[in-house]
C-alpha cells in the first residue's frame, strides 16, 4: 500500500540520495517526493509517498531514521495529517467554452494563472482526490498538460510533530 512519510533532514548534499537510496535499494517505487528548506535553512522537510508492503513499513522508518543526516522520520499513513498537493494544468480550450471552464474551476477553488490565445493555465491545491476530480473535469474541455507537486503533509497529532524550531524561536535567535 502507499506509505506517507514525513521527515526532517539536514540540508546537506547527498541527504536526498541517502533517503531515496533506502527506498530504491528495496525496490520500492517512490510515487512522489517533495523537499524544501524549513525556517531554519540548515534543515529541510521531505514528504515521501511510496509503495511499500505492510510488513516493511516500520523497518523502513527505522532504517531511514538511522541515516546520519535524518533528524526524524514519521509514518503519517494512518495518522491524522493534512495532506495537500499543488497542480498546474494547461488546458487547450476553445474560446466559447472558457467562461464555463472558469465557473467550474471555481468550484475547486482553482484559478487561472496564465492565459494565452490557445490555452489557460490553472493552478489548484488540495487533497490528491480533489485534484484528481479537477483534472478529470478539465480534460473534458480539451487536451491538457499537467505538472503535480506530489504530496506535502503535516501531522496534526503532536507525537508526530517534526522538531523544527517554530517561527518565533527562529525570529528570536536572529535577533
Amino acid at each position, binding site marked *: 500500500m502507499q506509505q506517507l512519510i514525513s521527515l526532517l*533532514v*539536514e540540508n546537506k*548534499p*547527498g541527504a536526498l*540520495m*541517502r533517503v531515496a*537510496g533506502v527506498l530504491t*535499494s528495496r525496490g520500492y517505487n517512490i510515487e512522489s517526493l517533495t523537499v524544501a528548506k524549513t525556517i531554519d535553512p540548515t*534543515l529541510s522537510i521531505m514528504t515521501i509517498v511510496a509503495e511499500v508492503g505492510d510488513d516493511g513499513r*516500520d*523497518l523502513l522508518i*527505522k*532504517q531511514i*531514521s*538511522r*541515516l*546520519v*543526516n*535524518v*533528524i526524524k522520520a514519521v509514518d503519517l499513513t494512518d495518522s491524522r495529517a493534512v495532506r495537500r498537493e499543488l497542480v498546474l494544468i494547461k488546458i487547450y480550450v476553445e474560446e466559447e467554452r472558457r467562461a464555463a471552464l472558469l465557473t467550474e474551476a471555481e468550484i475547486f477553488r482553482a484559478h487561472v494563472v496564465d492565459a494565452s490565445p490557445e490555452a489557460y493555465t490553472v493552478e489548484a491545491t488540495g487533497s490528491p482526490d480533489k485534484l484528481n476530480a479537477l483534472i478529470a473535469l478539465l480534460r473534458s474541455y480539451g487536451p491538457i498538460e499537467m505538472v503535480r507537486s506530489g504530496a506535502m503533509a503535516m501531522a496534526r497529532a503532536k507525537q508526530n510533530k517534526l522538531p523544527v524550531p517554530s517561527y518565533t524561536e527562529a525570529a528570536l535567535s536572529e535577533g
Partner: protein
Amino acid sequence: MAMLSGAQILIESLVREGAEAVFGYPGGVTLPIYDVLYSHPLRHVLVRHEQNAAFAAQGYARATGKAGVCMATSGPGATNLTTGLVDALMDSIPVVAVTGQVPQALIGRDAFQEADTFGISRSATKHNYLVKDISELSQTVHEAFHIAVSGRPGPVLVDITKDVLLSKGDYSDEQAMMPLRGYRLSDEPDADAVERAVEFLWQAERPYIYAGGGVISSSASSELVRFSELLEAPLAHTVMGLGAMPTEHPNFISMLGMHGSYAANMGVTECDALIGLGVRFDDRVTGRLDKFAPGAKVLHVDIDPAEINKNRRADLGLVGDAKPVLRLLNERLAETRATLGRERREARLAWMEHVRAMKRDHPYVYEESTEEIKPQALMRKLDQISGGEAIVTVDVGQHQMWAAQHLRFNHPRLWQSSSGLGSMGFGLPAAMGAKFACPDKTVMAIVGDGGFMMSLPELGTIAANRLPVKVIVMNNNTLGMVRQWQQLFYGKRYSEVDVASFPDASLLAGAFGIAGGSVADPADLDEALAHAFDEPGPYLLNVQVTPEECVYPMVPAGGAVNEMILQPEPEAAEAVAGD
C-alpha cells in the same frame, strides 16, 4: 597557526585520531597526500590492490576495535575499495576510507579516473562525504572517525577533491566539530525496561543465550560471561561472536546456524526464552524463520533500533550498547536471584545439563584417515598450535566453517571472518592488518585454494614488510562450498568448481622471497606445520586435503535448524568416491 595544505591537514587529522597505519595505494589525485607521507612518521602500508587495503584496515579494526584506515585514488582506486567497505558495513566494522577525487573544475566532465565515488559508496558505507572546501576538511575527518566507531560501528568514506588537497587552510581540531543533529546514539535503556527484562529472564525455565558480533564491538565479553553465569544459561555464538565467551567455558555450546553443532541448534529449538545479544537473526543462523526457536519468547538487545523486530519479532526489545545493558541486567539479576524459586532453578539446571549432554553426545564428527589429510584434522592441528590464543583470519567457504567449528578462542578479537558479506579473498589481507595491530601475536590466515588466489598479490606486501603471517591454504582443489551444494542439491553436476592447477607453494612463495611448502601426507603434517610456525618470517603452507569432504552438520537453505543433515548418507559417500 601556519597555513597547511589540504593534504597536510588530512594527515594531521588522521594522526590526531590515533591512526597508526594507513593501508593504501597511491594515484594521480592523491599525489599531494603521498608527498606529505614521504617525510611523515605516519606509517603507510603499500598494498597490491585497493580491495585488500579495505580488508587490511578491517583486519586492524577487528583486532583492536579502533577504526582501520585505508586510502585510494579516484576512479578505479575508489571502486576497488567498495567490496571491502560493504564487507565492513555488513559486519559493523569501523573503517575510515579516504579517497581522492578529481579537481572540482573537472567533476562531471568525465575526467581521467573520475568516478562518482560519493554516489557509489553511498550504499557501501554507514556515512560518506565529498569534501569540496578546505575549511571543512579536518572536521569532516574527525566526524568520519566519530561515526565509524560510535553506535553501531561501520565504514565511513571521505572523498576529497584534488584542489582541496592542494589548497591552503587551517587545521581545527575535533573539539570544533559541529553537533551531528541527525546522529543519535542510544541512551541506556530505562529502568522499567530493565525490570521487565529481569522478570522475563527469571521466568524462563529453558533460557538460551545467542550472542554475536555486537558483544565484541561493545567489548562486553566479561559482562557476557557473568550474565550467562548468573542465569546459569547455555550460550551459543554466531560466527561473528566467536571468542566473546571463551570456547572452553562450561556454559559455551558452540556456533549455531547452518553449520552449527547439533547441540547449539537443538538448544535454540527447545528453549523457552531466547536472549539475542548483539545479533541480527541472520538467515544463516535462523534457517526457516518460523521454525527458529518456535516455542521461545525473545528478548533482543541491540544497539541499532532497526534490528529489533526486523527478522524475528521480539517479545521484549532493549535498544542499547551491550556492555552497559549487560551491566545493568547483571546488577539487577544478582540482586533478585531469590526470585528464582527452587523448583524453577532445578528445571533450569536440568535444562543446562540436557544441553551439555547433547554437546557431549554430538560433537563435530569426521572420518579419520591415514591416507589423506582430513580438513577437520588440519583445523584441529592448527587449534593445538593456537591454543586459543592466535589471531585467525579466514576466507569464505568450507575452510571457514571447519575453522569456526574446530578452533578455540580464549578471547574476543582473535577470530576474523567476513561473515555477513562472505567475501572470498578477505583472510590474507585481514591477517596483514591484524599483524600490524598486534605484532606480538601469532597471526594465521586460514584460506581456501579459491580465495587465496583472490588476494595472492598481497604476498608481495607480506614480503616487502617482512610480516610474519602464516598463510595456511586448505587446498581441496575445488571451490569446496559451491561444490558441496552441487553435490547435495544439484545432483553432483559439478559446474565450474574445479580450481586444480594450484601453483607449487614453495616456488610461489620463493618467487616473492618468502618461505613456503606443501604437504599432502597426514604423516608429514605435524612436521610441516612445525616448520611453518617455527620459521621466524612469513610462511605459505599448502595443505592438500581430502577433495570431496562436506561440512556437517548442515541446515539446508530455507530448512529449520533442527532438521540438520548430520552426516553424509553412506551410499552418497560411495557415489562421490566413484565419481
